[in-house]
C-alpha cells in the first residue's frame, strides 16, 4: 500500500465513524418514532444537509471499500498488483455511482 492509499484509507475510516453513528442513530429514531417512508422522504427532499451528509458518506465509503478490497485481493488471491488495483478502482466507481443514485432518489427524485 502506498502512503497516499494509506492516508486515504485511515482518513476515510476516521471520517466514517461519526457518519455511521449519526446514520444508525437517525434510523433508530425514525423507526422508533414510527415515521413512514413518505414522511422520511418528505423530510429529505430538497435537503442540502442530507445530500451533503450522504454525499460525504458515499465518497468515504467507496474509497475505503475500494482500497480495502485491493488489499484483500493482493493478500488472499493470486491476483497481481495491477489486477487488484483495477478491481479496487472499479469498485470505487461502482459504489460511487450507486451511492450518487441513491442520494438523488431521496433528495431530488
Amino acid at each position, binding site marked *: *500500500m502506498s*502512503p497516499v*492509499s494509506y492516508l486515504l484509507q485511515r482518513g476515510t475510516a476516521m471520517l466514517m465513524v461519526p457518519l455511521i453513528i449519526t446514520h444508525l442513530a437517525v434510523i433508530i429514531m425514525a423507526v422508533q418514532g414510527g415515521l413512514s417512508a413518505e414522511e422520511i422522504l418528505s423530510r429529505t427532499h430538497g435537503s442540502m444537509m442530507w445530500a451533503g451528509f450522504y454525499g460525504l458518506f458515499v465518497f468515504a465509503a467507496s474509497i475505503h471499500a475500494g482500497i480495502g478490497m485491493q488489499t484483500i485481493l493482493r493478500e488472499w488471491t493470486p491476483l497481481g498488483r495491477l489486477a487488484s488495483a483495477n478491481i479496487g478502482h472499479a469498485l470505487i466507481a461502482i459504489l460511487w455511482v450507486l451511492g450518487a443514485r441513491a442520494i438523488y432518489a431521496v433528495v431530488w427524485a
Partner: protein
Amino acid sequence: MTSQERTFQVDIWRGDENGEYQPFEVPERENQTVLDVVTYIQRHLDPALAYRFACRVGVCGSCAMTVNGRPRWTCRTHVSRVVKNGKLTIAPLTNLPVIRDLVTDMTPFFEKWRDARGRFVAGDGPKNELAPVEPESNERAAASEAIECINCGVCYSACDVVSWRDDYLGPAALNRAWAAWNDVRDGDRTGILKAVSQGTGCHTCHTHQSCAEHCPVALNPTFSIAGLKRASLKAKLKGQLR
C-alpha cells in the same frame, strides 16, 4: 541411551518442502533446550539431520525453528516450557524456502533488509570529526529500542502479512530501517523512507503484532513500523518522496 532413562517423542521435519515428519525418541535431561534435543538427534540418532546453529547462547540468531507450531530461538527455549503431552514437533521456520530438514534459505529475508535500505549511508560531514548524537534525544532513544535485533527471522516467520504476500518487506527489515532512520548521522534518511514506503513496505503492515509477540529479545517491530508509517507519510505530504 540406557533402558532406565525417561524419554519423550520428538517429531522432526525431514527433507525439503515436500518432506515429512520423522519420529525420534530422545532422553529427558534437566534444563534441556530444544537445540540440545536437535543436537542429540544429530550426534546420536541420525548424523544426516541438517540444522543451523552457532553461539548457543541467544546472540547469533541462527538456530530459530518452528517448535510445536510456534517460531522460537531454540538455544534459549527449554523443552519443559514448550513440550505438549510429552511430545515435541520441530520444523523449519515458515515463510522461507526450506533447503533441507530444519535449514531454511534466509536469502529472501536478507534481501529485504537490503531493499529496506537498512544500511548506513555516510553523509557529507567532515570525515575526521565524530558526529554528535545526544544520548537523550528522541532519535537515539527510538534507535536504541530497535537496535538489538539478532536477525533470527522469528518475527518474519510469525508475520501473517508475510505469509500472505511474499513481497512484503517484513518486520525485521522494517525494524532495521527504523533504527537506521533514527541515526541522525545518516546521509540519506529520506532514501530510507523512499525504500520503505514502496507498495510492499511499512504501509502494508496490519499491526497484528505477531512480530512483537514472538520476538525472542522482546523488541517491538510493530512500533518501529508505525514510526516509519508516520515519518514516510509526513515526508510524502511535504513532497520529499518523489
